[in-house]
């Protein structure tokens, strides 16, 4: 299964990087989104996969019952997801402003003197 998820995050990275190397603003941001999904998947998988219980202590038990999923990468990924949302929203609006101000969605044209 690890190999399968490795394939998935590899493809996410490849597609993300490919899009970030494009000249269109919209593609840059879509690429960023793919990259952050790929990273979340990478961290989650690297933390160790298990189909077992979530890291929630059952009622009445003193501690987690083995085997359980590792809560540490989950906590890291959870905030990464929400921060990723903030990043996406901000860069989208930034791109939108650049687009309306510069009148183009071609990154190479934005910096050019008019």
């Amino acid at each position: 299964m690890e190999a399968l998820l490795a394939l998935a995050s590899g493809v996410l990275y490849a597609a993300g990087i490919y899009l970030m190397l494009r000249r269109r603003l919209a593609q840059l941001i879509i690429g960023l989104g793919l990259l952050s999904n790929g990273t979340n998947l990478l961290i989650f998988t690297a933390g160790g996969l298990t189909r077992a219980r979530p890291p929630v202590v059952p009622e009445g038990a003193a501690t987690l019952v083995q085997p359980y999923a590792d809560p540490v990468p989950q906590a890291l990924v959870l905030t990464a997801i929400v921060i990723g949302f903030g990043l996406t929203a901000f860069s989208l609006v930034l791109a939108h402003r650049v687009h309306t101000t510069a009148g183009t969605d071609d990154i190479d044209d934005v910096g050019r003197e008019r």
Partner: protein
Amino acid sequence: MIGFILSPFVVAILAAWFVSRFPRRAALLAAWPALLTVLLGSEMARAVSGAGRLIELPWARSLGLSLSFNLDGLGLLFAILITSVGALVVLYASRYIEDHPHASRFYASLFAFMGAMLGVVLSDNILTLFVFWELTGFTSYLLIGFEHERAAARAAALQALIVTGAGGLALLAADVLLVDVSGTTSISAMAAQRASIVVSPFYNAIVGLVLLAAFTKSAQVPFHFWLPNAMEAPTPVSAYLHSATMVKAGVYLIARMTPVIGSTTVWTTAVMVAGATTMVVGAYRSVQETDLKRILAYSTLSALGVLTMLLGVGTPEAIIAALVYLVAHAGYKGALFLVAGTIDHETGTRDISGLAGLRRAMPRTAQAGGAAALSMAGVPLTLGFVGKDAAYEGLLHATDWYPWLLVLMVLASVLLGLSGLIAGVLPFRGDPARVKEVHDPAWPLWLPPLLLAAGGLFVGVAPSILNGPLSTAATAIAGMPVDVSLRVWHGLTPTLLLSLLTLAVVGLSYVFHEAVRARTWKPRHGTEDLYEGALSGLNAVSHAIAPALHSASLRTYVMVIVATAVLVGGAALVTDTGLGSAMPRTSIAPHDVLIVFLIVGGAIAAALAQSTMSAVLSLGAVGYGVATVFLSFGAPDLAMTQFSVETLTVLIYVLVFRHFRGLGPLSSRLVRARDGLIAVVTGIFIGGLLVSVATTETPRRLQDYFAELGPTLGHGRNIVNVILVDFRAFDTLGEITVLATAALGVRGLLRFAATRRQDHYVRLVTSPIFRTAARLLMPLLLVFSVFLLLRGHNQPGGGFVGGLVAAAAFALYAIAFGVHRARQALLVRPLTLLGAGLLIALLSGVPAVLSGQPFLTALWAPGSLPLGTPAMFDVGVFLVVAGVVLMMIFSLAEES
């Protein structure tokens, strides 16, 4: 006492407010340094009676940083000069820069500088001394460049900052070596280890670095050029920084370090040579200038050279002479600077060729200038005379080649006396009838220089009142008891004859001063050319390098970063045999293949999409696929969060992307092929990395730690949530702050857009079925979000996902009924939600602080109810997330 030493920093802030509120009452600010002078004076009395003390306030103990101040004679002598001259300068400035639009900024910088100077001369810790030292450089940058509209002022400020800043770096390096060699950060403790420091292999480096710092700060040749240029500063600043205080910080450093690393051949030679050179160069150049302030600047250089040279000689007599000279110079030079400023203020010029006959129009100013010039020339019964006499005495009684120094000193004294007369007497001489419409200014402009000059005369008549303070100060420098007994009359000694000879030559040369100025050779080049050359060289180098490194093309940066990561990381993957030694543990289920197929397909579709909408939908498919992975592998919290985020993200994408056109290729086939190759190689690297990491055994300490302590310490059974709101709450606080910042950024970007129309709000969907559903779903979603928040500590849920669901509820409502109605339904503004959330999260950390524990330590109420600060924190997270999302969605939807 520490409070008083640091008080100027507080006064700096208060002064800015006070001056902007009462611009005509700035003179009152002089009361504070005057009060400090009295306090420091009483400390001095204590030090004279042999009870100097070290006071200490721990600051960062683990770094060996403590605010420790050494109230001994040396430090207090400088400190009293700083506060007393400071009081007079503030008084003077109250009139000099009255009505200046940036007056409050001036006082803030001036008081901050005063605090920094006090820190320099009183610090016992060598690291805090460095911090204060840098602060003086920084505040003097602000003060020299006070009139920042003028390019010359900015250039001079920058030059002073670079030159003295370079010295500051040298001081830091010296500090590091000294602390390393001596094992202590206290200067007084270092003096006790002098023997081991002097023989250490770093000794020469330490001496070089310390002297580099001292010479740049005190403008010794060859670093002297910044001081005359710094005359671009307003005159009160020149009087304060460039004669009485800051430039003497270097002299102070030499004096302070003498018992630690001084009195060796290297030290003595270097200090003496630099001082003597500066003394001669400064005196020579001072008589050539015609600008009053530049005359004074060069003569200050010369005086700094005298002080440095005398400290280099280092005999008890020379040290005494240095201290007397220091006090005398602060008095007459401060007075002369202020007189120059008053003349400039009243007549509008500082050029002596255009100034004459002011004595009748400005009698008080003339008295101050005359008295100061007499002291500077060394007329008997002035403190200047006592100082010069002591210096001659010190050089006369030293051995070896010091007689040569004496000759140079006499020469310099003649020139200095001449330049003093040119600056303090010449403008007032001549035909008074030529002067029209000029008169003595208000008292704050003539009283401070008059007090300074009169002080020199008064102490000159009764110099013995300095005996006590100077004895303790000299003892601190020499490292052995030194007894100072100053007298007006020593009898007919060789030094007296030398003094009288000097005076006679000064008088003679004053008569012929125009001839002297015209006949002397004026160098066209100086070390400033070297400085300029080095600076433009550096600029040329960075101009050559920067365009290649800083191409301003995002794609180049991405390529460089990716290539570096792949090459370095890939090399590690291939060579490290420890990776990938264990076997994968998890088998593949049929539905997993389907999910991975969804993710991979979505990613490829997004990469190749020709329209923005299909790209967004493909990205959404990827997001849901990843969320499903989280769900299948024991992470319901992640799955819930990802599902909500993905929904809201798609909504935001749609809101923005309706403005973008298609995604047809812009670059050539070849470029796309190259990028595709880079992308595929990166993907292979990431895949390989993940396989090898996932199949490497790692220790499980952390997860067991959290699993064990979550229910007991954290009072929660959902370990992920306990980590977020308790164990790593500080982290989470940072993250919600980032989120809030991003939302404010979005709001700001959209607010400045001119296209926003207030009265027009978008209704995206008008289907009655959808509206009815939305009306029913919204309250349900809201209840669900609160439910998620409440159960989050024990079951999957929590503030993050709760906030997202709550935001989704209002977003749904906005889609159905328009943003305006949604805003009404929300009752408060999203900004309020966001702010309240941050505040609640912050406040939840306060009870711990009040009970003496670190910020954000969890505290739980006794009893079975789950009431505790982490629950409160989670409420804050909930509100922030909801506020952030709604702020973004509302402002985006409203933006046409």
